[in-house]
């Protein structure tokens, strides 16, 4: 389990949630790790005075759009280097940015899903720094007046050793801002050269800033996973961390209760939720230890070394950067409308109506979970598994529809048996050979007591490709028929029945 777990990009926690009730070894090891997040408020009680830790997040999510934020070049993952670069992306003199409507709509939709106030007027700014993969010498961002502000993200996470001990927490979303991604630098140390790929330059990002309302790595990871799920539900971002479509920077500090926040460090470039949790907890522990021996924390940027499990200072960017922010003069203020303020004389394709986007909002994961709990009487933690696993909820609901079996019974089959087997074989629900209708049929038979629970489990296993279990089924038939059936014929009939 542990190995699968490590290689899972964004969904590590789902596995954790699912497996922890069972004696999965890898999970055990994790639970018993010396990390401090097992206590509810993540206090660190070493030394005379307890420490409190605070964690804020800056999340960059690439907007799922056909073309870039300010140019018409295509957004393609893994395209040949410098093959999707317009004149603007290369900052040729005289080129001007023009905003991509789809990106604005995605940011508005995301803001709405995060309960933000959408600013009907937002502004663009230039943030200056010299870097080889930033051809203009500045990034266009929204420093002064972002597109969405003052939101809230609710997430749930496990607080105790048992999986039904879930806590609900909220983190304030300070803002959602639109900005450009940079290109990529590849340093070839042997040849003493840097290669630049501008494919990524100019792709739209949403920077989502979360206030320091989290207290430990697991909280931050849970918040990020919830955000990921929301973005995927909205289809505003693929939000795949391993592909760099979502990148998380964490600001971390510790202080004594009742005292002002301590000096914070920023941990950058974390590429999975699991590493995020590890990096934050390591950083909290490190800061605490330094302060305990009378040391001071430097306000610095650190990177997480996932092999060693530690954070290390990033190469110094020559002191503090002054980004010399300036209003972007080539983009007028971005004006959004609602149905009430919609100007009569403007064409529909020239305006963005917030209310229309609001109408298009799909059911958000938290609502889906509540509905599942209410509608089917399943446990809240099961609703998490259903929603977090891509396609599982649809699968579950299809089985419910196709059978007359109590959903509370179905959920165990879907999560424990079906998903459990799939996991073992590294498959996703969409790759399952057991269709919702065959599972529904199986469970109906079970419900009518035509077959026994163990027989049903064997059938389910065989259907998923476990042919060793076939012999057990043949054994069952022989037992029932008291040895009067021809084993070869039984096998043929069973193969026909079970596998087709």
């Amino acid at each position, binding site marked *: 389990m542990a190995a699968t777990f490590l290689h899972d990009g964004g969904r590590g926690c789902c596995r954790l949630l699912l497996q922890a009730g069972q004696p999965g070894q890898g999970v055990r090891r994790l639970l018993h790790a010396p990390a401090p997040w097992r206590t509810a408020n993540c206090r660190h009680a070493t030394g005379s005075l307890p420490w409190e830790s605070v964690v804020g997040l800056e999340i960059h999510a690439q907007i799922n759009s056909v073309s870039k934020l300010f140019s018409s070049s295509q957004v393609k993952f893994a395209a040949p280097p410098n093959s999707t670069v317009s004149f603007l992306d290369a900052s*040729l*003199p005289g080129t*001007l940015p023009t905003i991509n409507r789809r990106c604005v709509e995605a940011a508005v939709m995301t803001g709405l899903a995060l309960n933000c106030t959408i600013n009907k007027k937002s502004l663009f700014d230039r943030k*200056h720094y*010299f870097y080889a993969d930033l*051809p203009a010498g500045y990034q266009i961002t929204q420093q002064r007046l972002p597109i969405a502000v003052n939101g809230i993200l609710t997430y749930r996470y496990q607080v105790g050793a048992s999986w039904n001990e879930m806590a609900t927490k909220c983190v304030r979303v300070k803002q959602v801002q639109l900005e450009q991604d940079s290109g990529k630098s590849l340093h070839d140390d042997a040849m003493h050269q840097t290669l630049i790929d501008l494919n990524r330059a100019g792709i739209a990002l949403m920077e989502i800033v979360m206030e320091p309302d989290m207290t430990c790595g697991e909280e931050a990871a849970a918040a990020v996973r919830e955000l990921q799920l929301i973005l995927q539900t909205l289809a505003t971002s693929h939000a795949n961390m391993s592909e760099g479509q979502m990148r998380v920077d964490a600001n971390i500090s510790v202080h004594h209760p009742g005292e002002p926040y301590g000096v914070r460090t920023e941990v950058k470039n974390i590429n999975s939720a699991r590493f995020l949790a590890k990096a934050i907890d390591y950083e909290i522990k490190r800061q605490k230890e330094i302060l305990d021996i009378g040391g001071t924390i430097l306000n610095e940027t650190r990177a997480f070394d996932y092999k060693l499990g530690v954070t290390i200072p990033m190469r110094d960017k020559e002191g503090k950067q002054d980004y010399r922010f300036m209003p972007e*003069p*080539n983009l007028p203020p971005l004006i959004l409308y609602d149905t009430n303020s919609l100007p009569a004389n403007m064409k529909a394709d020239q305006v963005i109506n917030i209310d229309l986007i609001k109408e298009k909002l799909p059911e958000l994961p938290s609502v889906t979970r509540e509905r599942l709990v209410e509608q089917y009487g399943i446990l809240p933690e099961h609703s998490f598994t259903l929603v977090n696993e891509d396609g599982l909820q649809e699968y579950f609901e299809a089985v419910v529809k196709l059978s007359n079996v109590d959903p509370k019974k179905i959920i165990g089959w879907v999560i424990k048996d079906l998903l459990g087997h799939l996991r073992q074989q590294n498959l996703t629900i969409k790759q399952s050979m057991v269709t919702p209708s065959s599972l529904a049929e199986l469970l109906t038979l079970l419900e009518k007591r035509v077959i026994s629970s163990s027989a049903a489990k064997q059938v389910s296993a065989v259907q998923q490709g476990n042919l060793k279990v076939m012999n057990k089924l043949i054994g069952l038939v022989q037992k029932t028929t008291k040895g009067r059936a021809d084993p070869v014929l039984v096998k043929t009939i069973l193969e026909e029945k079970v596998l087709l």
Partner: protein
Amino acid sequence: MLGSGVREAAAALRLGQLTPTELCQKSLSLIKETSFLNAYITVTEELALKQAAEADKRFQQGKPLGVLDGIPIAIKDNFSTKNIETTCASKMLKGYIPPYNATVVQRLFDQGAVLMGKTNLDEFAMGSGSTDGIFGPVRNPWSYSKQYREKRKHACPDGDENSDWLITGGSSGGSAASVSAGTCYVALGSDTGGSTRNPASHCGIVGLKPTYGLVSRHGLIPLVNSMDVPGILTKCVDDAATVLGVLAGHDPQDSTTIQDHFQPFTLPDVIDVTKLCVGIPKEYHAPGLSSEILALWSKAADLLENAGAKVVEVSMPNTCYSIVCYHVLCTAEVASNMARFDGLEYGHRADVKDSTEAMYSATRREGFNDVVRGRILSGNFFLLKQNYEKYFLKAQKVRRLIADDFVNVFRSGVDVLLTPTTLGDAAPYLEFIQEDNRTRSAQEDVFTQCANMAGVPAVTVPAGLSSRGLPLGLQFIGQAFCEQQLLSVAKWFEKQTDFCLLACHENGHIVKQQKITWSLRHGDLRAHLTSHQFIYIYALYAV
């Protein structure tokens, strides 16, 4: 033919009196003869002849594209031209060949205009003399008028003729000189603080800065994005209106252009000024204003009043802060805009391989002149976190006040403002370079940059001759997007000044700098306009 305006030339082309290729060849030979003016950085002879040949075909088929079909034009070398080197008169962009046309260039091409070349300027348009570019200063064609020469000889008999010549003003000095010398009918300049109007005034031609947002900046290599406007330099106001009709209107590639449809217009020949209200801003009585310009300004006001217009003194109380704020806002945007010139994607790259940072700094040190580097330095200073509020934000606030001054004046019933364009006539080069670029820009832009701060349109029209025999211009400033009214007034004024052509005869010799003599004769010389042995230049009677 080259002495006349676009309309006359277009009519001659339509009547078959000459072909676009003949016109192009005349223009090319004149460019060669006047090459000492240093007006052109690149002469696009091959392209011009090709475009002219295509125009020939269209005229033969009786299907010219528009009024500019076959008309020789020139474009300032800070507009991107596809496959044609675009340098901004800087080492940084020497050898840079853009892969696309600026929208304004494309619109001129779409009308069949024939590009003669790319014109000289101050490096990245930073200057007011056209003296600070890597290709050397532009010489004002008026330096070689017989009238000026004689007066000059009289004033300083020991003067060295070779070094004793006048600046064109700037930064679009090459464009102004190219039109003034008759090598093309229309030139594009750019106008950020007066860069079109200032040289137009010094070279005795019309210079129009349209309303910000009316003409696309896409492809114009920026100086100050929030103030830059493509400028139009022509021999007469009608031509400016014609070219504006071609250039103006929404461009999806420039988000700051207005969405509203622009209706091209022609100016009536009979213009009634009796219902017009002309404002004379008292704050434009600036220190250093020459008595000649003051007198001309006053005469023009009288002229309007005598014709029945209402002429009122108005106050624009924030005018005096404008040039300082302009400097802060300009340098801040310059610092930002110039950041892309790092030697990586295009342009000059220093041969330094120690580190990326070392390469950047050497590239920028080698690539930019002192003026550009100075502006980058001060701009970055103003944008520092600790200074932003004190300088940049404050300058922006004052900019709003300056814009409000215009709004208030126009709201009070004033239709157009009448002001000087420059403090005086064109300075001799040796005198001009006694002061640094910054001081000169502050002096030269004093009457012009306010319109850029406010975004309103302004046009300079030749208004008379100085005692030295040099052209003097006056400026009309209009309300935003009211170019038709503005240019109508300008045309009326142009007619009143009894504008006429003076021919400059060089006695059949190939024009060379030392040998050139200009004989100035009054009167309508259209009869003489058939031979390319003549070089024509505008002059006019004093009002």
